[in-house]
């Protein structure tokens, strides 16, 4: 089942003197349960593409369908609502809410979706256990290491069972051990919950784990390799 379709997507930035084609005529499709990495050198358009997929930015041309919904047809508040229900985000620098505990950070989206307390607690504990942080329930981000924070961020992204998770350079700030650990967790959750993961990355360790690798160069897809 297709969760994401990109049709001739372009993104052009108008700088003072020249037009920059950050994404140039990209056509892609993602199935449910994929574990895909978008790779490419700096400036190749990975983050721009991810931002458009996540509805944070809109294409200059082309269409993006998430679960058959064209995000460009939605109003700003509807896009936010759509993101909350369908897309999970993992950022390079974790971006947890500093005043909330690990548990509260994970619960945050479920709270926004008004899940009942029991259901919320069950799901939170499930995820904390899955990311190996069941003993850090009440720790605030400042009390966690970078790796632990990123694991909480992954749990937060998965909390409300989105259609897919977008992770922008999720391992860029992590050491080798934390990276291995995080990738194992994400892969496990991908398999167990059948949630699509799409990464943008430079990291060879992430690429190694990915079952699909899309390579971008100058905003264009130059290869799309599916591994088994």
């Amino acid at each position, binding site marked *: 089942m297709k969760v994401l379709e990109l049709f001739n997507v372009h993104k052009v930035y108008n700088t003072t003197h020249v037009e920059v084609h950050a994404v140039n005529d990209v056509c892609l499709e993602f199935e449910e349960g994929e574990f895909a990495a978008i790779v490419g050198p700096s400036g190749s358009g990975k983050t721009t593409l991810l931002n458009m997929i996540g509805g944070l930015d809109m294409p200059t041309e082309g269409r993006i369908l998430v679960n058959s919904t064209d995000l460009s047809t939605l109003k700003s508040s509807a896009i936010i609502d759509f993101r909350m229900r369908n897309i999970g985000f993992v950022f390079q620098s974790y971006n947890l*809410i500093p005043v909330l505990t690990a548990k509260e950070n994970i619960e945050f989206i479920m709270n926004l*979706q008004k899940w009942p307390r029991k259901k919320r607690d069950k799901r939170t504990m499930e995820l904390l256990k899955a990311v190996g942080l069941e003993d850090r329930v009440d720790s605030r981000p400042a009390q966690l290491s970078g790796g632990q924070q990123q694991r909480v961020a992954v749990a937060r992204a998965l909390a409300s069972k989105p259609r897919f998770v977008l992770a922008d350079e999720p391992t860029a700030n992590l050491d080798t051990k934390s990276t291995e650990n995080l990738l194992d967790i994400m892969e496990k959750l991908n398999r167990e919950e059948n949630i699509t993961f799409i990464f943008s990355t430079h990291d060879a360790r992430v690429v190694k784990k990915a079952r699909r690798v899309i390579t971008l160069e100058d905003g264009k897809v130059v290869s799309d390799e599916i591994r088994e």
Partner: protein
Amino acid sequence: MKNYKMAWRNLWRNKRRTVITASSVFFAVFFALVMRSLQLGTYDSMYKNIIESYSGYIQVQDEDFWENKIVDNVFKNSEELREKITADRNVEDVIPRFESFALASSGSRSKGVMVMGIDPEKEKLLSDVEDKLVKYRLTDEAISAIKSEEIPAYLEKNMDLFHGNSYSSDGRLQIELGIKENDEEYLMPLFEKYASVKNGYFSMGDNAALVGDRLARYLGLERGDTIILVGQAYHGHTAAGKYVIKGIVKIPNPDIENKIVYLPVDVCQTLYYADGMLTSMVVHLMDDDDDAINNTLKRLDSNIESPYRILGWKEMNETLVQQLDADNKSGIIMIGILYLVIAFGVFGTVLMMTAERRREFGVLIAIGMQKTKMAGVMVYEMLYIGLLGILAGVAIALPSIIYGYHHPIHFPSKFAKIWEEYGFEPVMAFQWIDKYFLSQSLVVAIIVLVAVIYPVVKIRNLKEVNAIKA
């Protein structure tokens, strides 16, 4: 997590900033309340002095008397009129007055004075002249005698400063001379021994006068001396009389003290050839609240017709009212400037809070938090800061004002003299908790709420993709 809970936690992310901002709100509220209370209280005290020592709240006069204060514009002290006035539900009694001008002389000195004929007993309801009789006077002899005793150095200095002054109460003397509480027991008997003045009061029919302290000093009069009054009497007669001074009075209003001569009202009527006539009836009220006064004024105005005129205290003291009104406006401008400074402080904090959390706003919107909810959190944060500051300001201002209300500020000796020279009683009183308490707090709350418009607009226009990169 509910907005209010999240906002509360956000508040303590930067404790120092929150404390500083809440403190600025606190100081604004505190100073605004205390300044306002002091200003309004001092006005009240000035009004009270003039009302209680002279005008009263309401007077009934002949319709022409106010514009032309001659003894021909008098009216008959009739029972019918008295009954009409006392029939009003807020009127307790009517105090008769006969007021005119005369030339007072003693020895080679003379001065134009205000002669006030009063009912010695009824007047106790309003100006209570008996209570204002001078009790102590710092004459040269009294000062030398006290100095010959063992007294503290500060008292010697202060007695020189207030040389010649009179006091109608122990408290006033102690405050003005700065007598310390510990010294009271030892020093007061010395004043009693060397500086006390024996004054007496008069009754109806007594051919006696009470004279304002400043006037007495100008004319060089003491108790037992005679004052001669000459003026124009009713229907062209000449008013002339001499009266034994039974007492010297200290009036809280220095201007009045400088020109007042009290006579029993019947003696005053005889002086002016106007037996049975009055220049005014002062209406003594049960409730002297502003609204009650205005309502009584309206009722009396509609019940009592020509040839009488009903005057309220504001009309009778127009100059003072205008003077204090102008001063009040300058006070409001000062508070306005204080608010402006605080508003910039609060806005600075809001600006920083918004700028440093731009990325966080972007992330939260990216993961699904609606902008309205986010703005709600910011509104709560500013409300908390405002509430913390306002409540703390009110909590500290409240006991200060209550204390100040019961213990008015008496100017230190040196300043008291200057203040008195300008014609004001050297006292700064606080006003009891009133509407100003709510209005000042409300203004600060509005400043805080206006400041929150900035982050709300910023959040509304936020582009999450740019904010995340911040």
